[in-house]
């Protein structure tokens, strides 16, 4: 236990094998196979674009609105996939946990890594769309992975925390289902944050303190247009310390989640 657990070679091998298996089996038996990893967010985007972009005209004054929307839906798809798989991971791998001793966090990490692989593939699509839409590549693109990493930390923290509770109380799965539905509307994915600012500046600031909103807006700022209203720009105007709240939340969730998971994992084999 002196060396950090994840550096131990056996654990890395297991993580690799489990992730490989997960990824290989995800789209097993479907004709389009891996293509679904791309098609699902794209189709989701198409629906939202027709309804909110074309019919309701939410995009109004935002430059490159289609790409702007695509980036939002792609990031959101990653978040839901990552947390859903992560929260379910321990329960779905119950057969293993009851019969073999191995670090339990590997199961959660491997489940979320599949979502990460999908996200990376989808990022290529976003980049292609951005170029097609006439967005010039900029050096700020290089900062995007940092924001994505923050997003992954958030999803992982949630997965650890709720995944551990889910072992005993399966209600979590349903609660999280509803919660993600609510969260989808609580962050500026389909609507531009400027719409909220127009009605209530306070509400907009609260929305932007949500780490998910911060990540999505930062990503759009870095990749699509510097005109994007970000937590740093908008909330930072009031108080330069406030924009650190989302990052602090992510750190707290990740630390608390892993601590709780670690504490509870001793009894997973009995309780599952």
């Amino acid at each position: 236990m002196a060396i950090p657990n994840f550096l131990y070679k056996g654990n890395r091998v297991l993580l690799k094998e489990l992730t490989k298996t997960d990824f290989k089996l995800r789209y097993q038996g479907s004709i389009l196979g891996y293509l679904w990893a791309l098609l699902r967010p794209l189709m989701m985007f198409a629906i939202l674009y027709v309804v909110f972009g074309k019919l309701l005209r939410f995009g109004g004054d935002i430059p490159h609105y289609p790409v702007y929307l695509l980036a939002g839906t792609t990031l959101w798809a990653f978040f839901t996939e990552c947390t859903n798989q992560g929260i379910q991971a321990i329960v779905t791998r119950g057969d293993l946990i009851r019969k073999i001793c191995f670090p339990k966090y590997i199961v959660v990490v491997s489940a979320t890594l599949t979502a990460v692989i999908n996200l990376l593939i989808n990022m290529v699509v976003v980049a292609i769309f951005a170029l097609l839409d006439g967005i010039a590549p900029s050096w700020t693109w290089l900062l995007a992975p940092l924001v994505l990493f923050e997003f992954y930390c958030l999803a992982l923290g949630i997965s650890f925390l709720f995944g551990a509770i889910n072992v005993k109380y399966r209600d979590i799965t349903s609660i999280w289902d509803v919660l993600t539905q609510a969260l989808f509307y609580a962050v500026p994915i389909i609507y531009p944050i400027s719409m909220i600012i127009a009605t209530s500046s306070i509400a907009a600031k609260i929305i932007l303190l949500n780490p998910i909103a911060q990540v999505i807006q930062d990503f759009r700022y870095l990749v699509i247009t510097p005109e994007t209203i970000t937590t740093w720009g908008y909330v930072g105007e009031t108080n330069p310390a406030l924009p650190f709240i989302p990052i602090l939340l992510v750190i707290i969730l990740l630390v608390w989640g892993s601590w709780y998971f670690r504490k509870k994992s001793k009894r997973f084999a009995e309780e599952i």
Partner: protein
Amino acid sequence: MSDIVVSVKNLHKSFKLPTERAWGLKQAIFNRLKGIKGYKEQKVLNGISFDVRKNEFIGIVGRNGSGKSTLLKTLAKIYFPEKGSININGTLVPFIELGVGFNPELSGRENIYLNGALLGFSNKEMDAMYDEIIDFAELRPFMDQKLKNYSSGMQVRLAFSIAIRAKGDILLLDEVLAVGDAAFQQKCADYFASIKGKQTVILVTHDMGNVTKYCTRAILIENGKIALDGDPEKIAKAYKKLWS
């Protein structure tokens, strides 16, 4: 003594068994409000101590519910004991059930490597064992086929071969000694006869024939305690007397 590979001291383990449907948040909140515990404590291991020497073949016997499997799972670190300690000197390879983690959609080869990873072996270590495993299982021509296309006999043969060919210092087995058809069962029996006294094995079983044939020592467990520990012949007799 330096040749002690497993040292178990005063092991205690109990389970919290839900008294009614305590599954779900609603019931949990309900129970808390009413001051009901929602579970009862079941003591399964009640102060077990023993040492295992290198190359001993130990048979653990006892009636259903006596705590044998819990003991094995605690040794395998799947369960954490409330009290007491387990010291293990060397790598321990547990087989509580054959074919854990086997995936029907993966090929035989992929399943071997996945299973190996679950037991803590690196791909390199598995490369070294791979040929021995498939030769023992006699399944070389089928390695690239999906496991779901194997017959059930072939599946257990593969799982069993991984179990006995995995290069660990201590082998933990729960009632898995012979699988497959008569010829393969004979092969398993020969194998166990050949490792008697050469490899450390801890076996949980109900078959007294196996205890007297392979074990160098046996432990009888009753109500979570060690009732007898010693010569396999004597223990087998005592076991049969439990209900006659």
